[in-house]
């Protein structure tokens, strides 16, 4: 008995610890109900529907590629778009590839999530460009270069004033001039290692037209740099040592292996015509998301209170134990959410639904306990039997919910439903643990012997008592 009570105390302490880490705080309140429960959601990952932001789904047209190239092309596409998204300075953007899957028809999708961005227009414009690869040559010193530099200079000096000097020349690059050579003429790029230094470099090969263009370019620019631009940003500016006629070049210079691989990938695929098409846009304003979050938290707290009241009124002492188990259930789930789940409005709904269903196991057990009591068993026996006999029912009921949530998760067509299914699944699994292990430990730790009228009152329930 002492052992069981000790275990119960340890469980309570552990639950308080879990609650603390899950950012649940209790504070005193001057008026009813005197205690305020708050969940500090700042440390939880919230979905776009709660935080506000933009969710975009793109379709990549990979029909021109052979199977093996699709994966690489998609990865490159993702990298390119990630770079473009970073221009927005969005915190924690998500750019991910979604395989079409069983029902999706094997199409390749790209999902872009921009938390906090509600100006979709700009986002879509920036993202939607087809990746471009350009080669540019140095702009020679002269009137033109000076004019452009002066325009930049003027702008810099006046940009904070009310009338900054803006000139068309600002669109020009003072240091490099576009050349006719673009990614369209690139055959492929590979990572190679220098045989003497072991340093990685990127070797590129042009097709015949590209080789000719590249030959001219190098001939005219010996001992000067040629800049490689991807999406308008300079990624490398190697120095030309001699004219290259065979359309082969090496870009070297202090690469790390991963950087060289990324560059080769960008060169290979950055210029490939992987068209993307916008399939769906979702924008949620920040205020709407905040309203939804607050409403979700509020309904969770109220639902918990209402269910707790019901349990205590109907099941008395065991009901109180069930409320304890339910509290452990809630804090345990919140802790799991904090680390593993991106919460959405549907996820919160799934959680509230699971709070209602988590007590099912306790109700099954208590009803069975009551029957055993009515058959004349002693209280400790009735408790034991109640748990033992209700187990098959509990297992079956949760099994059907688990099957449903797994299928829902697999075939979810949007993140709303995926979120719901995931939270529901976690809830069902953890409720089996709390409803059985926690309730049993506490009921046994109370260790009622059950001969007094009072003890029997505490364990009886409801208003109808079954006939023996």
């Amino acid at each position, binding site marked *: 008995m002492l052992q069981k009570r000790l275990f119960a105390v340890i469980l309570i302490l552990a639950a308080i610890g879990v609650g603390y880490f899950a950012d649940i705080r209790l504070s005193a309140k001057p008026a009813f109900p005197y205690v305020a429960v708050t969940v500090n959601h700042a440390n939880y990952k919230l979905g776009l529907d709660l935080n506000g932001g933009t969710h975009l789904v793109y379709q990549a047209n990979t029909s021109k590629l052979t199977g093996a190239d699709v994966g690489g092309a998609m990865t490159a596409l993702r990298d390119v778009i990630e770079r473009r998204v970073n221009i927005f300075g969005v915190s924690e953007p998500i750019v991910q590839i979604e395989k079409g899957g069983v029902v999706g028809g094997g199409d390749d999708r790209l999902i872009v999530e921009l938390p906090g961005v509600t100006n979709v227009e700009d986002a879509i414009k920036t993202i939607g460009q087809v990746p471009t690869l350009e080669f540019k040559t140095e702009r020679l010193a002269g009137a033109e270069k000076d004019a452009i530099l002066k325009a930049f200079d003027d702008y810099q000096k006046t940009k904070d004033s009310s009338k900054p000097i803006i000139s068309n020349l600002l669109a020009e690059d003072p240091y490099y001039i576009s050349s006719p050579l673009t990614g369209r003429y690139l055959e492929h790029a590979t990572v190679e290692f220098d045989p003497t230094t072991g340093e990685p470099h990127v070797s590129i090969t042009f097709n015949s037209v590209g080789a000719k263009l590249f030959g001219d370019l190098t001939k005219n620019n010996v001992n000067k740099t040629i800049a490689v631009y991807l999406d308008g940003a300079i990624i490398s500016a190697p120095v030309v040592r001699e004219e290259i006629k065979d359309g082969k070049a090496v870009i070297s210079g202090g690469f790390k292996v991963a950087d060289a691989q990324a560059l080769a990938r960008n060169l290979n695929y950055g210029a490939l015509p992987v068209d993307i098409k916008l399939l769906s846009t979702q924008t949620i304003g920040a205020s709407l998301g905040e309203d939804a979050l607050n409403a979700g938290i509020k309904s969770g707290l109220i639902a918990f209170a209402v269910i707790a009241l019901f349990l205590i009124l*109907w099941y008395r002492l065991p009901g109180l134990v069930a409320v304890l188990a339910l509290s452990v259930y809630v804090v345990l789930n919140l802790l799991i959410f904090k680390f593993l789940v991106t919460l959405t409005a549907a996820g919160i709904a799934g959680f509230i639904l699971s709070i209602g269903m988590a007590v099912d196991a306790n109700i099954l057990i208590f009803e069975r306990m009551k029957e055993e009591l009515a058959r004349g068993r002693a209280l400790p026996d009735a408790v034991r039997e109640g748990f033992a006999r209700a187990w098959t029912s509990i297992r079956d009921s949760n099994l059907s919910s688990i099957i449903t949530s797994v299928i829902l998760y697999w075939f979810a067509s949007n993140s709303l439903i995926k979120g719901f299914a995931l939270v529901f699944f976690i809830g069902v699994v953890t409720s089996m643990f709390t409803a059985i292990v926690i309730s049993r430990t506490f009921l046994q730790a109370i260790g009622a012997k059950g001969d007094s009228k009072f003890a029997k009152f505490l364990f009886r329930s409801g208003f109808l008592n079954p006939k023996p």
Partner: protein
Amino acid sequence: MFIVKYRKIFYTISGILMLGSLLAIFVWGFNPGIDFKGGSVLEIEYPSARPELSVVNQQIAGLNFDQSIRATGEKGYIIRLKSLSEAERATIESALSKNTTNIPEVKRFDSIGPVLGAEALSKSIVSIILVLLAIVIFITFAFRKVSEPVASWKYGLITVFALFHDVLVPTGVFVALGHFKGYEVDTLFVTALLVILGFSVHDTIVVFDRVRENLKFAGVGKNRKTFDVVVGESINQTFVRSINTSVTTLLALAVLYVVGPEVTKHLSLALLVGITAGTYSSVFLGSPLLVTVESWQNKKRGL
């Protein structure tokens, strides 16, 4: 006993509900949401009082985006349109803020292309079929040991019939709400249906499970309790737990419906209706049907 004795009354109630739902589906049809058929939803809120509906209608009338407008909250409108491109979206937003200082804020914009819509529909259908299949396998497994006096596959058949009832009723309710109040059948509604399936199959099984257990102790020979008595007792014994497990779930859902976020209001309503129907069918429809099936068998055998 009460429930078994007056089962015809309960059959009638279920019959009316099911017929009504079927009628609603055939007469009014589904009102699919944009996640199934593709399209856009634009939710706006005005800083001060919202202009008259006719004013907004006039602002965007020339655009031909198949728009329909509905008021929402105190200062907002929800505008439903065809699937819009980015340029079209900009057009409608500027149209809405033309010639006024009361410029609405865009609270939400969803645009789903027809491709994704069709895909969501097929995914939903596949998941419903899979859940049904899994449930049939589950029932077959759960009742593999029952035989007398009603064969185990008949338990299965009745369970599936009860499930059909549980799904049909909320569907009927939503079709009716769609006709009168513009409620839509969307992916969240399908999610609700799947959860209802999982929830009520279990409720039905609990009663059947008790019938099976009680049949073992029904006695032998002359003292043997008749089948309807066993079923009646089983219903009585499981009645409180059937009701209470549903009550806690319904309480949670009711709170979610009343206080919860706008997005999940229809989800919780569908679940409320479906779980109520599911609890009703487990207690008042499924188990009495067992008795009815048994008495048919007896008539056939000439008993």
